[in-house]
């Protein structure tokens, strides 16, 4: 059994018809439930739930305060390599885009790490394009060995791996995994990924589960919002998170809601997701999964990020840069996409504090004391 089977149960589901038929009283009922079922999630994602957005927000706020308190975990991404063999039509790293390609040397990784560590951050997310010859497991292990001396939690957002490969990275010091399905719509997925290893929809959809099996402490899923109708994409994302949470209760499951941003290839998203829509998605997730983390990246603007803080957000990136070597060098490789919130970590922390939230730089500690594996 994999999440793919759950997906198949809904693949040909008549979303448009079903969503049309939902009534406002059904939406009100879903909102008032203490434990939401799959159908309730879909109901809260429907247009009929829109009039209840403020009520959803209030409830989401209450649940988040009780579960997580007034704290926001901060991390920053570090791009290691933008070599890529994929043809994702919406991505700046697409192999066909004529951009500067780079892979950080270990020396450069060390410099970037030292620079980021100056901000006080203890959690880092490392990213690569999909090019195993350029950024394979061994290269990543080498990077992690360096990063471990600067950070207490290392997350990866890279191409999907086999379970034992995840295991190798965990043994090196990685504890968290982020991998987005991009779109859960299998047929659309094929057209968006015309060539390259990423074409394998099933291998990707099962990657978060392989990460759980390998022993990741936390796993983050999401869909790239804008590729398909957001209501069904958000629904599948919620189902995916719930599937993982139920099957792997020892793993902290979280969700991202990345909206498409302009990038080098100039791909235009087919569906727009308004701020109002994003708030609906976020609050529906919170009501459906009160204990799940919700991550918001610098794809969103500073003003919008500040405004949605009370609605369920638990984790935010800060001081981000989406190009390889971008933390230390102005002549870094081309970026994956344009970021929107350009505030540095200190600035972000000050803003959070002024809004009544505590910025948390560290929320995990590797259990061996440094240099003493016996402790």
């Amino acid at each position, binding site marked *: 059994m994999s999440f793919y089977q759950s997906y198949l149960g809904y693949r040909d589901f008549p979303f448009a018809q079903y969503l049309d038929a939902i009534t406002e009283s059904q939406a009100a009922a879903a909102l008032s439930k203490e434990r939401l079922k799959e159908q309730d999630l879909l109901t809260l994602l429907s247009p009929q739930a829109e009039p209840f957005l403020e009520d959803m927000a209030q409830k989401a706020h209450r649940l988040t*305060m*009780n*579960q*997580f*308190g*007034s*704290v926001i975990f901060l991390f920053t991404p570090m791009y290691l390599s933008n070599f890529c063999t994929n043809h994702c039509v919406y991505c700046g790293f697409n192999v066909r885009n004529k951009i500067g390609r780079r892979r950080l040397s270990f020396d450069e990784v060390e410099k970037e790490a030292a620079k980021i560590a100056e901000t*006080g951050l*203890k959690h880092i997310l490392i990213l690569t394009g999909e090019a195993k010859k350029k950024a394979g497991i061994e290269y990543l292990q080498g990077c992690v060995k360096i990063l471990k001396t600067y950070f*207490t939690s290392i997350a990866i957002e890279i191409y999907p791996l086999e379970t034992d490969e995840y295991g190798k990275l965990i043994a090196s010091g990685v504890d968290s995994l982020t991998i987005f399905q991009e779109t859960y719509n299998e047929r659309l997925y094929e057209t968006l990924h015309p060539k390259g290893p990423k074409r394998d929809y099933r291998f990707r959809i099962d990657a978060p589960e392989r990460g759980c099996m390998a022993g990741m*402490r936390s796993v983050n899923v999401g869909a790239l919002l804008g590729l398909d109708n957001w209501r069904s994409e958000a629904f599948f994302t919620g189902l995916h998170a719930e599937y993982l*949470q*139920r099957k792997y*209760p*020892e*793993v*902290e*499951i979280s969700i991202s809601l990345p909206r498409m941003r302009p990038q080098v290839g100039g791909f235009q998203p087919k569906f727009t997701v308004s701020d109002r829509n994003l708030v609906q998605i976020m609050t529906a997730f919170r009501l459906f999964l009160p*204990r799940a983390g919700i991550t918001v990246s610098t794809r969103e603007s500073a003003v919008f990020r500040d405004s949605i803080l009370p609605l369920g957000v638990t984790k935010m990136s800060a001081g981000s840069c989406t190009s390889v070597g971008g933390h230390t060098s102005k002549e870094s490789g081309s970026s994956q996409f344009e970021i929107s919130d350009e505030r540095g970590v200190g600035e972000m922390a000050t803003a959070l*504090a002024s809004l*009544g*939230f*505590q910025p*948390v*730089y*560290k*929320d*995990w*500690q590797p*259990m*061996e*004391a440094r240099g003493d594996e016996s*402790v």
Partner: protein
Amino acid sequence: MKYEDYLEIGGTKLFSRLFIGTGKYASDALIPQIAESSGSQVITVALRRVDFESHTENVIKHIPKTMQLLPNTSGARTSDEAIRIARLAKAMGCGNWIKIEVISDNKYLLPDGYETVKATEILAREGFVVLPYINPDLMVAKQLQNAGAAAVMPLGAPIGSNRGLKTGEMIRILIDEIDIPIIVDAGIGKPSQACRAMEMGASACLVNTAIAGANDPVRMAGAFADAVRAGRSAFLAGPGASRKTASASSPLTGFLDFGDPR
């Protein structure tokens, strides 16, 4: 003569029976004020969140030196992880008290009794003052007592739920049957609930979410202190028996009061 009421744990006399936490506050800078208004002497802190290398953003720097630090093993999923965190806490200078939290269920944050007992056995043997967080399960509590726990900390309701003493009947059984202190941890949402736990005979309460989540956390900490004190006094005073109905005005045994009819 008025006798002194205190709770002794790990050789330390505690005159406040309210334990507090450090998570969930909008700012760690609130902690000294919370400590003061609560009058609490014990404060728990998640080791995972302490940045020992940071001189500015280290939660421990905000904790009054007079308080007993109770590091917790939040994030541990197995006894082995809890043991490692406990040892790390000690190595980092956080003392030898440890609140064992072994949670392999991130949905409800319910503790794993079996793994908790295993960790307690080993850490108690190593000289830690072990306070394990558990579901109020009598057998688990007995095993913990035998394993050398200094107290047991049963949950009133899931962490962060503010639902009160949902497990009240089970906690009452622990209070009756277990010889080490019972400290109600998790679930208490209002001072009245903490008061009730104390009236029942709990030795102390640990409250975090209900204080941190209040509009005025400092004031709420004071309210909890009052409630815990009142509940404790009521327990010591020994309340009269309560009845479900009023006493009948024509009691069936009234004739016994008229002396021997013979």
